[in-house]
C-alpha cells in the first residue's frame, strides 16, 4: 500500500509537470481525461468486479452534477464540499437504486439502468429549480491568487480534477485489493458459490452499486466544474454508452488500463473533427463520426481484447516466455 501511495504521488508530480508545459487546450483536455478516469473507474468497480451491468451511469453523473451545482448556486457551499456532497448524495441515491438492481441481473439490469439514462436527465425540465433545458450555472470561482496572475482557470480545473482522480484511483485500487474486492469478484464469478462461502450477495451488490454511483456522482460534479454549467444536454445517452466502451477498451476486469479508456474518449472527437475537416467540414460528419468511432472501437475491443489490452500484453509475454523456455 505504501508503494502504491508513492506511485500515485509520483504520478501526480509528473502530471503537475505536464500541466505546466502544455498549452491551454491540452490542459483542458487533461481535465476531461481525469473526469473520465473516475467515471470509467466507477464502471470497472461495478461491472468488472461485482458483475452488475449499468447503461445508466451518465444519469448518475447528471445526478451528481446537479447536486454539486445546487450546493454552490443555492446554498453557496464551498466547491470541495459540493464535490463531497455530490459523491455522498449520489452514493445514497445509488444505494436505493441498488436495492432494485440487486434483484435484477443481465439484460433486465441493463434495461433498467438504460431507462434511468433516458429518463433522469430530462426530469430537469419538469422542475424550475433545476433550470430546465438551460440548466444551472456553477460558479467555479477564480484560482487562488497565491498561484499567480498567469495561472489560468483551466489549469486550476486540471489540478482539481487530477487530484480527485488520483485520490479516487488510489482508494479504488485499495478497496479492490481488499476483502471487498475479493468478495465482489467471487460474486461475479459465481454468486451461488459465493453465497455458499457465506457472502451476503444482496448486500454486497447494493454496496458495490452504491459506491460506484458515488464515484459517478463525483465524476459528474467535476464534469460540471469544467463546463461551469449543468444541464440535461451535458449528459446525453451517448455518454453512458461511451463510458461502458471506455471501460471495455480499458479492460473491464482491471483498473490499470483506466487511463487508456479515458484518453480514447477525449481523443475520439478530436480525430472525428480532423477527419471531418478533410471532407470539407461537413457538420453532419462531425456530429455523427464520434459515435461511429466509439461503436467501432467497442466491437474491435470485444473481438480482439475482450479483457483489455493489459491482459492481452500479459498473455503475449507469457506466450513468448513459453516459446523461449
Amino acid at each position, binding site marked *: 500500500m505504501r508503494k502504491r501511495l508513492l506511485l500515485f504521488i*509520483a504520478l501526480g508530480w509528473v502530471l503537475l*509537470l505536464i500541466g505546466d*508545459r502544455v498549452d491551454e487546450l491540452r490542459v483542458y483536455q487533461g481535465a476531461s481525461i481525469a473526469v473520465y478516469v473516475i467515471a470509467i473507474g466507477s464502471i470497472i468497480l461495478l461491472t468488472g468486479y461485482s458483475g452488475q451491468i449499468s447503461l445508466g451511469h451518465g444519469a448518475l453523473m447528471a445526478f451528481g452534477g446537479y447536486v454539486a451545482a445546487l450546493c454552490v448556486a443555492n446554498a453557496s457551499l464551498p466547491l470541495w464540499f459540493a464535490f463531497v456532497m455530490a459523491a455522498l448524495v449520489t452514493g445514497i441515491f445509488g444505494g436505493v437504486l441498488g436495492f432494485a438492481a440487486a434483484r435484477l441481473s443481465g439484460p433486465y439490469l441493463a434495461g433498467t439502468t438504460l431507462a434511468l439514462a433516458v429518463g433522469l436527465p430530462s426530469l430537469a425540465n419538469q422542475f*424550475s429549480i433545476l433550470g430546465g*433545458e438551460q*440548466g444551472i450555472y456553477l460558479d467555479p470561482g477564480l484560482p487562488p491568487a497565491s498561484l499567480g496572475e498567469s495561472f489560468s482557470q483551466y489549469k486550476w480545473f486540471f489540478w482539481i480534477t487530477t487530484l480527485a482522480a488520483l485520490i479516487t484511483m488510489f482508494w479504488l485500487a485499495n478497496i479492490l485489493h481488499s476483502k471487498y474486492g475479493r468478495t465482489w469478484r467471487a460474486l461475479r464469478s459465481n454468486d451461488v458459490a459465493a453465497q455458499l462461502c457465506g457472502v451476503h450477495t444482496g448486500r454486497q451488490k447494493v454496496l458495490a452499486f452504491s459506491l460506484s454511483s458515488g464515484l459517478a456522482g463525483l465524476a459528474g460534479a467535476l464534469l460540471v466544474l469544467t463546463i461551469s*454549467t449543468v444541464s440535461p444536454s451535458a449528459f446525453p445517452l451517448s455518454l453512458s454508452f461511451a463510458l461502458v466502451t471506455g471501460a471495455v477498451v480499458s479492460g473491464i476486469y482491471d483498473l490499470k488500463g483506466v487511463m487508456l479508456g479515458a484518453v480514447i474518449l477525449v481523443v475520439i472527437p478530436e480525430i472525428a473533427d480532423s477527419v471531418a475537416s478533410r471532407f470539407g467540414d461537413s*457538420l453532419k460528419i462531425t456530429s455523427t463520426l464520434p459515435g461511429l468511432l466509439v461503436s467501432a472501437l467497442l466491437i474491435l475491443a470485444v473481438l480482439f481484447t475482450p479483457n483489455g489490452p*493489459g491482459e492481452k500484453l500479459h498473455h503475449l509475454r507469457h506466450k513468448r516466455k513459453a516459446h523461449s523456455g
Partner: protein
Amino acid sequence: MIRNTPKKRALFASAVIAAGAMALSTMPAQAASQPGITSTEIKLGITSPLSGKVAAVYGKIPGAMKAYFSHVNDNGGVYGRKINLISKDDAYVPTLAVKATNDLIMKDKVFAIVGALGTANHLAALRSANLSGRGVPDLFVNTGFSGFADKAKYKTTFAVLPSYVMEAKIMAKYIDDNYKGKKVALIVQDDDFGLDAVAGFATAGLKPEVTIKFPTGADTLAAAQGWITGKLKPANVDIAIIFATTTTSAAVLGAAAGLQYRPTVGWMLGSVGGDSNTLRAGGVPLAILNGAIGTSFAPDPSDASDEYVTFFKSIYAKYVPGSTFDLTVLQGMNSAMLTVQALRAAGKNPTRAGLIKAIETKGAKFASAGFTPLRYSANSHVGYSGYWIGKYSATGSLQPIDGKRVLYTTDSGSGAVVSATISRAPLPTNGLPTNS
C-alpha cells in the same frame, strides 16, 4: 514476480508520460503576435444554433454575416485582410456553447467572438471560457439580456440589441399611454431572458393580470393551447404579450388560430419573437397577426424605402441565392457591418485590447440600420438604446402606426422612457465603411 509486474508497468507508464511531456513541451510556443491575425486574414468566430429546434430561425445569422463579410472581402477586405468567420453549432444548448466557444478560442485561435447567440448559452460560454479574463473581444452579442452590458463583470463583451428590460419598459409605457387600465397577460421563458422582461415590466409599474412562465423547450402547441384555454380565456385579458422566441410566438399564435381566440385588444409581440417571415414559415396564418402590436429597433425587412434594407437584401441575394431575407438576416448583416467598422477603428495593426478601446471611443458613431443611438463609451457597453412601436399589417410587415414611427429610448435601469427622433448615419457608399 507477479507482485512486481504492476510496479514495472507503472514505472514504464510514468516513463512514457514523462517522455510525452517533454515532447509536448518542445511544441512551439504561441506566437507573440495577436491570435487570429495574419497579414492576409482576420479570423473571427461565432456560436449559434445550426441544428435543433430554433436552428431554422437563428441558424441564418452566421450565413448572413458571412454574406456581408464576403462583400467586404471582395472589395479589398479590412486594410487588405480578409475576414474569415468560423461558425460553430451549439444547438441552443449551453454545454455545447461552452465547448464550441472553447474550441474557437483554443483550437481555431480566433481574434474575437462576434454575434454569439442565446442568453443562457452565451452566458455559460462567457463564464466558462472566461472571455473577460482572457481579454477575448466578445462583440455584438445576439441577445438582449441586459447583463451582457455589465462592463464591470464582462470587460470584453459588447451588447448590440436594446436590452429586454428596455423593451419591456417601452412596451409598458406604450400600454400606459394608449391602453391604460386594460388587463394584460405576459408569456415569458423561465430563464434570464424572461426574468429580464419581468423585471422591466415591474420597473415600469405594469402589473400583468396573468403571467405564464414556462421552462425553455416547454413551448409546444399543446402547452400553448393549455395556456389559452386555462389562463388567458378565463381571465378575459385585453392584451396578451408574448415575450419569447419565435418558436413560442408560433406555438401561441398557431394555437390561437386553431381555437379562434384573440385577446380583446390584441396580441403584442416582443422583438425576439416577432419576425413575421419566421412565424409564417412556422405555420402561423398571418391573418392572426394583423393588427398585433410589435416593437423593433431596426426597419422592417420588407421596407423597400429603407436604404439599409435594400442594400442588405441585394447583398444577401447575391451571396446566399434563393434564401428568404428576414429580420434575423438583417440583424446579422447589421452586426457584421458594425464589426467591420470596429476592426477598421482598431487600426492597421489591430490588437484585442485595441479593438475594445476602439469600440468604446468610436462605436457610438458607427453607421448602422438601427434607428436609436448606440451607447458605446468608456463607461458603457450598451448597444442600441430603444425601440419603435408599430402594428403588423395583413401581409405581416411591421408598420409605423398612422404613418408615424414612434421612437422611445430608455436604459436598463430605472431611467424614464422618453420619446425620441430618428438618429442614424446614412449607409456608407456601396455599404463599405471607410471609417478609421
